[in-house]
């Protein structure tokens, strides 16, 4: 019965739940789904992490390569994030080049890396004007059940913190390159930005960490990326206008979440080193 009701009028179905401040997957409005983090799960990548946010699953792998730096930035390396929403993760995606959403996510990742300055591009330089690191950061969605943005940021940051590079040297006079795979240098990641996404349901109710169903019914969305006590980004693309109080509330929760999540990353990393 419930199924049919859900099919027929999803909106009403959700309303019924939200009337008593609970969500169909018996979460509270402000509650996250369980977040599982598995760091260093792919040994072929220089750095990797798998994040599960409820059902939503993102795997991030970082492949490091070397290239000649740009003429106008001879002392800098490259970070190239890309998000892949493969047809595997949801029936709504088709094979072929990335769609709008994948592109927007990729861009969000790039912006996150740039504004949070968690990686100093100059650290990625090997020999000025000659050789720099290129970090190909690829995030693959394995299960698309909403709030991919948060999962991606978590995976991205964890993978970066897990990344270590072999030592590469350029011979001064001959100019030929030597790699020593035995000595690995961990990549320095200065900070740990964490994103928190909300949707607006029915123009007034705020839901944190939405599932795919919830996202489909949303009348607006907002993503806040926090780092320590600071805000790295507030991203509210249109949708229902929010009151200042609502915005403040979102920021509160985002700051809180950022503490928890960075704690998660930190402790998980320690557990590897042990």
């Amino acid at each position, binding site marked *: 019965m419930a199924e049919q009701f859900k099919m027929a009028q999803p909106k009403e179905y959700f309303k019924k739940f939200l009337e008593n401040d609970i969500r169909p*997957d018996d979460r509270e409005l402000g509650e996250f789904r*369980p977040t599982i983090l598995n760091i260093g799960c792919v040994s072929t990548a220089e750095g990797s992490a798998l994040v599960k946010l409820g059902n939503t699953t993102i795997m991030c792998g970082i492949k490091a390569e070397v290239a000649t730096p740009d003429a106008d930035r001879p002392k800098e390396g490259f970070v190239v994030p890309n998000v892949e929403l493969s047809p595997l993760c949801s029936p709504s995606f088709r094979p072929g080049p990335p769609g709008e959403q994948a592109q927007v996510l990729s861009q969000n990742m790039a912006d996150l890396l740039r504004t949070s300055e968690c990686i100093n591009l100059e650290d990625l330089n090997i020999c000025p004007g000659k050789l720099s690191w290129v970090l190909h950061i690829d995030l693959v969605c394995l299960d698309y059940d909403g709030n991919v943005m948060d999962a991606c940021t978590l995976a991205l940051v964890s993978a970066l913190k897990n990344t270590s590079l072999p030592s590469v040297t350029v011979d001064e006079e001959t100019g030929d390159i030597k790699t020593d795979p035995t000595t690995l240098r961990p990549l320095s990641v200065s900070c740990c930005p964490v994103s928190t996404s909300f949707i607006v349901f029915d123009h007034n109710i705020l839901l944190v960490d939405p599932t795919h169903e919830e996202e489909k019914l949303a009348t607006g969305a907002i993503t806040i990326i926090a780092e320590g006590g600071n805000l790295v980004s507030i991203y509210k693309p249109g949708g229902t206008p929010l009151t200042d109080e609502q915005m403040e509330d979102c920021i509160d929760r985002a700051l809180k979440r950022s503490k928890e999540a960075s704690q998660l990353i930190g402790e998980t990393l320690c557990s590897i080193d042990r």
Partner: protein
Amino acid sequence: MRETPLSNCEREFILNFIAQQKRLDGRKAYDYRDLRIAFGVSLGCCHVELGKTRVLAQVSCEVGEPKQTRPHDGVLYVNVELSPMACPSFEQGRQSEEGIELSRLMERCLKESRCLDLESLCIVSGEKAWHLRVDIHVLNHEGNILDCASIAAISALAHFRRPDVSVHGEEITIHTLEERNPVPLSLHHMPLLVSFTFFSQGKYMLIDPSSKEEKVMEGKMVVGMNKHRELCTLQVTGQMLLLKEQVLRCSSIALTKVTRITELIHEALENDKQARLKGDKHGFAVLVSGDKVTSNRLPKTEVKVDTLEVSDDMGESQSSEDESGNEPMEEHTEGVPKESAVEILTKGVGMIGEGGASTWLDVPQADTKQLAAKKQKHKVSKMEEDEGSSEEEEKVILK
């Protein structure tokens, strides 16, 4: 998007009218519509209005590797964009027949005419050279995009300056504009395209056709020429035959037009230069006067706000954060206990939070080992505790 079709009555009327040596907008057969050339604030940005047809051209540059085939030359890209902006029938992204022909002609006009000295764009032969890029955006299509585009493109190139570079051994430095003045491109000559349209077996000829005239035309001849009467392209399209005389006549008309337009371009360049020297206002913002009925102007307005919070002290935001800890948050906080939220399941696997559904790696309550096994199969030892599949693999291994 679908474009409003041309009705028969319009078609017949226009053709008759042309047969009477008249045009809808009262021009003579060999008249151009009035031409307006304006430059943007950024260098190499040119906006051309030909009647109501509008084209924007922007030149940009980057340092890259030269082509293997021509290691001593820079590279010039020409990109013509026909978007629905100009006219509903143009598709976004997909290049139409029209678009391809257009870019082809522009390339012939700008690249194959060798109007630009590419060698001067080489920095280190075979390694580094300037890549120039001309982006041509058609903003409004009221006919004769081609001529308009060629004017915009060539003016933009003439207006452009590239940053100066110096090479010491292998070290190349691109100087900021503070350090050194940017250098102009060395433009040998200014080729322009003039298109002639023909009606009723080439009996009547018009230049600078309007969009309606283009719709009813029979064929078209494009002459690419500079003011020294050097021909750089000549293309005839459409199903009609032309007499030798006509071609010659066209070329001589083209010459007069090209000379006139070249003058106009130089004038415009000069005006822009003067304006910049005097520090007058220049760029597109000035184009809109605000005295037209449809245009409006808002002088710069001071915005007053009552006293703001002191923004740059962290203490503030800190405090606001603390308060986040208490009452407004309460209802959300349960479910995620503050301390020791993190649960380390196995090496490199941690989790927080409860509730919600998860089909893969569903750990909570269930023995964490199971997940451990699932994630870290390298340790077969772990597998033993795991029932189901892993037992099987014990078997597998034992055999």
